[in-house]
């Protein structure tokens, strides 16, 4: 019988850890989408040979500690202000690759003004937007993107239109703005969606370096702790309940 050890060799190696991801154990919950999106970001930067030119702008939320995992220069912005911080970094260093990494509360609630105006100025940056319809870090409160009837710590009886309004379709709004060149909604729940996400992320980074304007890549994501689900349940729930409200695909590509 053939031993497994004969199979484990270099020529059979089909997958490695991205060179820019270090060995720190992440603080993310099992089944959280941050891990895969981090990996994609690290891969794209390395593939494009941009590690010495890239400055990432972290936001406030679970990804506030992203600097612990991806070995590039990072600036931690105040809650919602990452697009303003990125604006200055890119304007003062036009040859650098500048991107923000923001959650739904950061981008679509407290930072709405900064997001819309950075896009309206057509800042040559990439905005990576994690939409899991909840505030993960603070313990699962309602987000602007929380879907109707979804239960959270601050809408325990379900999101109610009369009290909380509607899930904010922020990417659709951003697609309407002249300054954006690429707006796309992606997800990372399958090999197919991960491969597609990486391709579009690569395009976004190229746009920023060639000065085409602002690119926004929204990732419909899971939050197993906030949703109180197992990783498998969370993916299933997301596909069933979130994707009809936030359908995947390119909203704008000019």
């Amino acid at each position, binding site marked *: 019988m053939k031993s497994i050890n004969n199979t484990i060799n270099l020529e059979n190696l089909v997958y490695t850890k991205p060179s820019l991801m270090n060995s720190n154990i992440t603080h993310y919950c099992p089944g959280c989408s941050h891990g895969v999106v981090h990996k994609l970001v690290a891969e794209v930067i390395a593939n494009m040979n941009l590690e010495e030119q890239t400055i990432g702008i972290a936001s406030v939320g679970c990804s506030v500690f992203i600097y612990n995992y991806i070995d*590039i220069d990072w600036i931690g912005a105040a809650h919602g202000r990452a697009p303003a911080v990125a604006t200055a970094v890119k304007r003062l260093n036009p040859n650098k690759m500048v991107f923000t990494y923001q959650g739904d509360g950061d981008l679509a609630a407290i930072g709405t003004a900064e997001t819309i105006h950075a896009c309206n100025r057509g800042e040559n940056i990439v905005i990576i937007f994690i939409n899991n319809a909840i505030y993960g870090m603070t313990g699962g409160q309602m987000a602007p993107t929380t879907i109707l009837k979804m239960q959270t710590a601050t809408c325990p009886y379900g999101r109610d239109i009369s009290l909380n309004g509607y899930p904010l379709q922020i990417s659709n709004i951003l697609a309407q703005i002249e300054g954006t060149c690429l707006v796309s909604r992606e997800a990372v729940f399958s090999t197919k969606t991960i491969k597609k996400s990486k391709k579009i992320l690569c395009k976004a980074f190229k746009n920023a370096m060639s000065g085409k304007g602002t690119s926004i890549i929204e990732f419909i994501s899971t939050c197993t702790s906030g949703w109180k689900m197992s990783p498998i349940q969370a993916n299933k729930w997301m596909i069933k309940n979130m994707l009809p409200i936030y359908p995947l695909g390119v909203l704008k590509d000019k």
Partner: protein
Amino acid sequence: MEEIKLLKGNEAIAYAAIRYGVDGYFGYPITPQSEIMETLIKERPWETTGMIVLQAESEIAAINMVYGGAACGKKVMTSSSSPGISLKQEGISYMAGAELPGLIVNVMRGGPGLGTIQPSQADYFQTVKGGGHGDYKIIVLAPNSVQEMADHVALGLNLAFKYKNPAMILSDGVIGQMMEKVILPKQCQRKTEREIRKSYPWATLGKSKSCKPNIITSVELDSFLMEARNLRFQKKYRTIEKNEVLYEEFFCDDVEYLIVAFGSAARISQKAVEIARGIGIKAGLFRPITLYPFPMKKLNSYKEKLKDILVVELNAGQMIEDVKLAVECKIPVKHYGRFGGIVPTPQEILEKIKNEINK
């Protein structure tokens, strides 16, 4: 080359910023300081020195642009007036927490709330005692002339970079709007990326191959490490208090009646002192130029020589608290203040001096 011009205080700030080699200005319009951004944009420094001038969507965005620029080791600044400065406090606290240098100009107007567009000094507490959240200090300069408005741009940014800490020029509508002769410094070159990397190895300009990444953040969830960070900040503040105090004394050698005032109130009080001297009153003026660090030690030395002190401010009594601390309440400290945008005349202050002396 140096150049002599007749300028408003606000315009002087703009010209000085270009000449000092500032990399970026980010602002939002508000009276009475809009000439700063208007002058910068009119001068188009991006075509000469390469300085970026950008009108932000809000004061909040503007200070966060300063945060971003400072993180890259760039000389960056913003300006506003009282209500706008309130909005910037979050960003200033984050800059202090992340130890970022940067210059903020406050051309104060009367408050609270939307208040008035007329001059005031009512933001002393906000500026000197904190403003934003957390235990932090910012370096505060109080110009009393158009010349000092220009000079404090370089002074503020130098101190900000020396201590990796935000600095503020605390001016007001009088100094911002009045016109005076000013000597502008010669044109400096902006620092190149190579120079910035060498001078400020902490700057986030993209990770060098052999180096660890640079991380700019104010977050630290481990309380013991956060306490250690706070202790380091406090040590830095003590160094600033020891080394960077600036003040001016006017007719203080034989002074019998001392006025303490800063900025525009000091300018008006100076005139009152001149008139008082003319009628045989031995008045003098002590003007703190740095409000933080406050000239505690020097003011303390007056407590043995004088019967009392008069603090003149365009507010209801704010710096007076620091003057009382400086003299350890050993002598009475009186206050004369006008507020809500009213600027006192030298005559008013003179009457106050006379009344106090005759008491």
